[in-house]
């Protein structure tokens, strides 16, 4: 248990992505619920006390909504699979311009369960994303960007810094409207206040640019031709691979190699290009986040869980319980164990330090 510090955002994201990949491989409600629980547990025990750590809760709520939407969708548009009819709603057929789809009819338990499973899966994926966002500070995330994306990162940072001020400014402007004897409520007031805020923002941008310029912004070693060639080459390779991959994805005739492997290769090449390009800048990072044992453990935990799911899916249908006929979902022990491993970060990750959050997220609430 190391001293309180923020874990490298990359580790959290790896963990979360692996977990969501697990969720994608199953419609087993039990496992999905377990995934959500694991994510929640880790978030609760390792999130910093900062505004953005709330996003997990909101993602859970969103997940709930997704489930409901999916089920309602099934009830309205569901094609009537045979089975135990729960209730029947009157049939309607939409006009042709709306593609003449027909709504309503008898609603069966089987169809509802299928919808529920699918909704649950999406909810689980959302929960994983929510976990990642609420576990790592966006600022750290930006600092972890590859250096070629530095400019974009700076732009985002500026946006973070400026957003709350823009909100304050818009409030002042609305007050100012009242001072000038205009109503400060309603959409009109809101729109009218938008413009002065924008103008202030733009003036602000000019001042900011001057300050950045005089503080050495954009002072980078001209990227050497070799490096540039290398990164461009990588990019092209990546593009070709992706093209092949997406072709293979769509054409049944294409050999298996032309599919996911090709796309993976493409992704790798692009990533390589980003990193290779980074070498060319003379910029340095102040106190970069270390990638130490805890980072390894956390990301490893996620990978283990994913591995367990893959091996389970090899063994049979336990990950996708049939809803028609409706059967009691089996609980593959291996997958459960894998998910428990994924819960390890709740203990292995260092506690976050007590840091004061900048007002960005707060005001946004």
């Amino acid at each position: 248990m190391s001293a309180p510090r923020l874990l490298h955002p990359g580790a959290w994201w790896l963990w979360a992505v692996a977990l969501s990949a697990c969720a994608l491989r199953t419609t087993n409600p039990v496992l999905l619920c377990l995934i959500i629980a694991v994510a929640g547990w880790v978030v609760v025990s390792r999130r910093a006390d900062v505004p953005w750590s709330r996003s997990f809760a909101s993602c859970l709520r969103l997940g709930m909504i997704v489930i409901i939407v999916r089920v309602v969708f099934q009830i309205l548009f569901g094609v009537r699979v045979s089975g135990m009819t729960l209730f029947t709603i009157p049939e309607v057929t939409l006009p042709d311009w709306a593609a003449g789809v027909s709504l309503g009819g008898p609603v069966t338990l089987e169809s509802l369960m299928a919808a529920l499973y699918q909704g649950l899966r999406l909810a689980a994926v959302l929960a994983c994303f929510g976990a990642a966002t609420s576990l790592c500070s966006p600022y750290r995330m930006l600092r972890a960007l590859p250096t070629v994306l530095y400019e974009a990162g700076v732009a985002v940072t500026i946006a973070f810094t400026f957003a709350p001020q823009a909100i304050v400014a818009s409030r002042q402007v609305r007050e100012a409207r009242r001072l000038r004897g205009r109503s400060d409520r309603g959409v009109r007031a809101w729109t009218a206040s938008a413009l002065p805020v924008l103008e202030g923002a733009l003036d602000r941008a000019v001042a900011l640019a001057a300050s950045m310029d005089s503080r050495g912004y954009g002072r980078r070693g001209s990227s050497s031709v070799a490096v540039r060639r290398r990164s461009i080459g990588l990019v092209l390779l990546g593009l070709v691979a992706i093209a092949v991959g997406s072709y293979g994805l769509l054409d049944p005739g294409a050999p298996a190699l032309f599919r996911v492997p090709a796309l993976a290769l493409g992704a790798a090449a692009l990533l390589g290009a980003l990193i290779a390009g980074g070498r060319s800048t003379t910029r340095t990072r102040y106190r970069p986040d270390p990638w130490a044992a805890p980072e390894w453990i956390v990301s490893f935990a996620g990978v283990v869980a994913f591995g367990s799911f893959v091996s389970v899916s090899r063994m049979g249908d336990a990950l996708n319980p049939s809803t028609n006929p409706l059967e009691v979902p089996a609980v593959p022990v291996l997958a459960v164990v894998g998910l428990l491993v994924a819960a390890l970060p709740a203990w292995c990750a260092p506690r976050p330090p007590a840091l004061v959050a900048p007002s960005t997220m707060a005001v946004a609430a």
Partner: protein
Amino acid sequence: MTLPLSQTAMKQTAMKRSSLRRARRALGAALLGIAALAGVVVGGASPAGASSCSGPIAGGEIRVVLVVDASDLGGGASATCLVVAAGTTGSQLLARRGSELGTGAPRYGSSGLLCAIDGRPASGCGDRSAGGFEYWAYFNGSSGSWVYGNFNPFTRRLSDGDIEGWRYVSGAGNGQDPPPRIGPARSLFPALAPSLPSLPDLSSLAPPSGAGDSPSSGARSAVVPSTSPSTGEARVDPSGDTSVDGVSSSTTVDDSVAVGAVALASSSTTHSTTGRWIGIAAVFVLIAVMAGGAWVQTRRSR
């Protein structure tokens, strides 16, 4: 300026509290959802009743023959005449057949692709093979010959006298894939006649006209009763199903299907449901513990 600051500060604290509360509520909600789900899963499916294909059909009902050819999976080919409500879709027809023969409902992939009929194949869905893909190809034979159906069983609505065919093929996934080996003959529809109890004489049966290329024995016998108007229809089906071809197919399903059916039946009923329930219970206890722990933690951090 102090007021925006103080406000943000205030907002932050407020939000922290509310966010924790939300997180807790959300976890609780998740648990509730799970409980509800568990409760629902207990309910089983009950097969719907069926009306006779040889008997008179009521208005709003249609007669459809469904040919399923699983020969490539070691199963036989069978033709089943069913009476269903007008506007039934191809997928509904399949499900209905499954419930009538007791061979269980077809299995679909999450993308809506038909994966298995009568539990065949046991796993996998449209996997690749040497010949391209192994999948259930959908045909329509209402015209008297099989037409590769580029249509979607979920949206395809059937009309009276339709002959639908499924064959498990290994092919490129286009019109070149082979059709079912039972020809889509009108004769697949049993003549309407009063039902007189007698035993079917299977030996005296001639091969049907327009039966598909090299029909398997199972397939031939399967279509027989419907070809001889004199016999075949007249018999009470042990399963209480008066549908002649229901009988015929059910009697003539070869062992593999029978075995498959048994296996499938057992898989949906007898295999250790209790064990599964225990497993589920265990996991949910786990989840409950986590949720509780999370709740306590958020409480403490307040």
